[in-house]
């Protein structure tokens, strides 16, 4: 697609204590891209996502959202985070709010929509995932898959420029994974997404870019076919082999 990248990172580093989790990561995401981050546990996928929207402060490197350097300490981190949507592995819905309140919270607080309009929009979103009828229940009444789809809708309700998905199917029962992936597949057509995932088949179907992370570095990057079908790097091949055998 034309135009400057939506999101760009250069030389990102992050350590926790003496453990280096990101050892210099570069990334470029164009509008409409779906970027899949794959790699073994502890390779830095989640940390990378958290650094991108400043939930973690990187130790070094720069990140641009559009043409704004968001690692500039003068940047307003809350305002920047509002421009990202995030979905976590554990859903993290607010248990004390109804499903509809969860979805409309950001619309009312960040986009400052009046309640009536926010709820109308929220109900339309919930209708899209077939949960409009459960709008006034609390999240604990929903199945894991329904909760995670609600979390996705909550994230896109704020109309983010980039949607970050952090292993969103890893905590789900196998039979609930499909419905969540189906929703992501629908969104992928119109949304810029960066997702950490273990669903390699799904990544191959939906992603425009696949990045293989290992030991805090991007070992290999390319189209899904390049990385997932005919990887050049030995470490990628090993990872895929182990993964398929397991």
């Amino acid at each position: 697609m034309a135009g400057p990248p939506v999101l760009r990172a250069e030389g990102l580093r992050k350590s926790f204590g003496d453990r280096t989790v990101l050892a210099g990561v570069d990334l470029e995401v164009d509008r409409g891209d779906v970027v899949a981050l794959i790699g073994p546990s502890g390779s830095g996928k989640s940390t990378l996502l958290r650094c991108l929207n400043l939930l973690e402060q990187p130790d070094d490197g720069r990140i641009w959202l559009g043409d704004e350097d968001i690692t500039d300490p003068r940047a307003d981190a809350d305002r920047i985070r509002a421009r990202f949507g995030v979905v976590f592995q554990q859903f993290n819905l607010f248990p004390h709010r109804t499903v509809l309140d969860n979805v409309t919270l950001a619309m009312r607080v960040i986009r400052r929509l009046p309640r009536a309009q926010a709820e109308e929009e929220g109900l339309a979103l919930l209708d899209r995932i077939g949960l409009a009828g459960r709008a006034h229940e609390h999240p604990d009444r929903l199945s894991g898959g329904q909760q995670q789809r609600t979390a996705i809708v909550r994230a896109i309700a704020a109309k983010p420029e980039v949607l970050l998905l952090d292993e969103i199917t890893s905590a789900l029962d196998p039979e609930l994974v499909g419905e969540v992936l189906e929703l992501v597949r629908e969104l992928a057509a119109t949304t810029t997404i960066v997702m950490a995932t273990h669903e390699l088949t799904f990544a191959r179907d939906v992603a425009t870019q696949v990045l293989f992370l290992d030991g805090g570095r991007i070992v290999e990057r390319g189209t899904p076919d390049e990385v997932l079908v005919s990887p050049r790097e030995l470490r990628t091949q090993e990872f895929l082999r182990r993964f398929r055998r397991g």
Partner: protein
Amino acid sequence: MTDTASDWRPSDIELGRRRFRKKQTLRSVLIAALSTIVLAVALWAGIVNTPGWAVVQQSFFDPQTFVEAWPRVAAGFLLNLEVLGVAAVGVAIVGTLVATVRTLRGPVFFPLRALATAYTDLFRGLPLIIVLYLVGFGIPGLQFTSGRVPAQVWGTLALILTYGAYVGEVLRAGIEAVHPSQMLAARALGLSRGRALRIVVLPQAIRKVSPALMNDFISMQKDVGLISVLGAIDAVRAAQIQTAEAFNFTPYVLAGLLFVVLAIPLIRLTDWYAARLRRREQTGAVL
């Protein structure tokens, strides 16, 4: 992974950001210091310039009375410490017992449970000072003890009764906040209910409510001063006597200072501990 950490040097951009953040921090500290000084000076000037300040200063902050009152008040304060130590142990025992009894299930335990509930209801509702009077003057009135029992013993008992009820409730909240799956996992290993509670659930429960427990402890620490109403010569009572002798309120200020000095390290410790707990909970899932 760790090998790359050693030979990495921050980039100029990162160094610039660090300089900027440091400057921001320094600025915030300076502003905070300045506003604190301005407020303190304003308060001080406001108080000192009141018409009655000279008189108040003389009757509350008289250095000579302070020095003269010190031995007696300090000796009384030792009694407070003694009572506090014994009461803390007693409260821990009573609180744990009550919390455990209140979480027992099964109809057999109904009388025990009802008793524990009645106890916490009663003693959380009663003002401490009334408990002190009831225990301190009521129980000796029964005359089942031979000879005179010192007032501080009854005071300690009253403190244990009152604070045991609070701490019992706090602990119960903690026990209920530990996820039921922990109890299940412990029982699945073959532990009895009691041992599961003691080895697995209670330690986690105490950790969860430790800020609240410390809060109760600090609160009790100053309520120890109330045993003076029973006639025990503690710091407050000693100060009262000194005040009556010197016609000067400075001994009260001295006693108050001693209690504050005792409380501050504990308050800081509580803050530090709460912050550590928070950090630990937040670092659970960084990767």
